[in-house]
């Protein structure tokens, strides 16, 4: 598939910038790193999380404003394979995946297509475990903002800038538990645009010592999407074909 000239230019600039960016990136400020380390600890600890080679999270989703419900599935396999699928009755199954080399999407409305660099980066945000541990590589910079409240809980607020896309995200971590409670971001949809999104994690569950979001609410361009995850499988057998683009 031929990329439009603008995207080609953007990719070229990004490639040129990468070595430079890598050399000047400083470690995150210690107060930022402390909050992120506390989050790792609250999520199960560095040792346990780094032992995760694969995972699959399954749940349901609903969009109350239009009465729509569906299912969602997110799978990852080390080091960087990802698969996200959403099935909505009447609409079908929408898949985005990355096999480590090729990012792709397939849905009944648009058919098959390759994902842009920005979309692959957005997709990688679903791989919470490795991102969580490698925060010094994932974020180009970080800043601790004034504390704020989320659903009545005091939080430490971090503004983090993605090393890959340069996009900012604001994350709210509970001062009490250390867990992430809210994230505001701009979602890069590649050639399909950019949209503001906000995610509030309302509760967590623990599976094999790992904390994962149980109930969360996403707001995407004004539309509220509720998600409930009821199962997390860790270190399960996942065939590589799940992540590979259909022939």
């Amino acid at each position, binding site marked *: *598939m*031929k*990329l*439009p000239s603008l995207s080609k230019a953007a990719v070229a600039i990004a490639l040129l910038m990468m070595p430079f960016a890598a050399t000047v990136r400083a470690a995150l400020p210690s107060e930022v790193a402390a909050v992120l380390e506390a989050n790792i600890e609250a999520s199960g600890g560095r040792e346990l999380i780094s032992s995760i080679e694969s995972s699959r999270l399954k749940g349901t989703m609903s*969009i109350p*404003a*239009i*009465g*729509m*419900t569906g299912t969602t599935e997110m799978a990852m396999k080390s080091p960087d394979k990802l698969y996200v699928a959403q099935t*909505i*009755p*009447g*609409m*079908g199954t929408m898949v985005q995946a990355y096999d480590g080399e090729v990012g792709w999407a397939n849905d*009944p*409305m*648009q*058919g*098959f*297509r390759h994902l842009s660099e920005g979309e692959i980066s957005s997709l990688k945000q679903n791989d919470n475990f490795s991102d969580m541990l490698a925060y010094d590589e994932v974020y180009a910079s970080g800043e601790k903002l004034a504390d704020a409240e989320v659903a009545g809980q005091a939080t430490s607020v971090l503004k983090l800038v993605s090393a890959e896309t340069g996009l900012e995200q604001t994350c709210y971590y509970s001062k009490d538990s250390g867990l992430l409670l809210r994230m505001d971001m*701009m979602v890069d*949809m590649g*050639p*399909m*645009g*950019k*949209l*503001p999104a906000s995610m509030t994690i309302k509760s967590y569950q623990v599976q094999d010592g790992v904390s994962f979001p149980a109930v969360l609410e996403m707001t995407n*361009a*004004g539309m509220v999407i509720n998600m409930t995850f009821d199962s997390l499988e860790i270190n399960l057998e996942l065939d590589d074909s799940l992540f590979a683009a259909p022939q």
Partner: protein
Amino acid sequence: MRKFTQCLGLFFSSLLFASWAGAVEPEFARLREETFEAAWSQVGASYYDGSFGGLDWDAVGERYRARLPQAEDMDEVRALISEMIYELGDSHLALVSSDYDPEELIKPWSGGTAGVDACYAGNRIVFYRVDPAGAAYRAGVRNGDVLLAVDGVKVKAFRAMLKRTGQPEHVLKYSLITALLSRLQTEAGDRVELELRSPGGRKRSVVVELERYRSRSTEPLGRLGRMPLALETAVREDGVGYLRFNLWFPAVMPEIREFFGELPAEAPGLVIDLRGNPGGMMVMAGGLAGLLLQEQATLGRTTLRSGHMNVVGFPQRNAFAGKVAVLVDETSVSTSEVFAIGMQELGRVRVFGQPTPGAALPSVFFGLPNGDSLQIALGDFKTPQGVSLEAKGVMPDEIVSISPVDLSQGKDSVLSAALSWIQSTH
């Protein structure tokens, strides 16, 4: 049942209102203020253009707030709010009175069908695509018949009722035909009286007894429920492909893909008939475009207060490279318009028919304290060259008029013009 409950609620409300008539003034003043403030602040928070078209929204609020005490009843409050929001000059900002019951004007589909479609011939509503095996045909409705009244209510009266809902002028033609056709899609067994005038000028009344719709319907999609689904694919005798569907819904895409797979690459052309198509999922405009494009291309962009969404065609296997004609009319709305104008600007299709209304802005409804609803546009759609669709619509490359006489003789002048272009340029 729901209507009965609403009526009961209104009845008790009116009893309460009567018994507290002496104390109404402060209560009304509170509701007047709350309603105004809610409308002003909701527009301020949600309207897609953060610059408010150059207006100082705070100053606008102050100006109208100063006039609020002069509003003596809720209709005057509504008029004030409407005047305020229309300063933004956007048709997708509207105040919908709680007195307005949309089901009174546009009936929900209840499984019935008459087997007809309708279009405009000038300002007249004319029946076409009359199914010879359908209920309307049995009752005596024929292609080219002009619709004058439904159940004793003149078409002009329907238009006046729609206008009172605050709908923008440019969508009234579309809404009118939708409201009238909805009366021919209620429950099987319902009897609908139609007053008609034949192309020869003869007036007559017929009673159509609706029958059960037995063709395809969509899978329920959230609150949208099931809707009748029409999909027509054919390779005509002259080799030209023909595709028509009535909704931009995912359910049609597998068959559309299959059709493109079977359409010979050497076919002289393809006609995509979007007349009467009210839209659906905007992303599907990119999906169909991908079946006609050899390179990735953007059809347009919806700009929100923060962020934007593009409609993009990603080239697909079996993409058709030949001539493509798109047919549109006053009832080709939303996603149909996005597809037509985007592909027209790319130079990939030639558009035939009548100008479309220009109604492709995503909008949402917010409730107000007095029970009214406020419709606010969340985004503005423009083509890559910056052409706005809103209230302007798609201007066909070839405007083709429709005549009841032609329709009565089985002639589709718009399709004929498209076929003529395909054959002459092949």
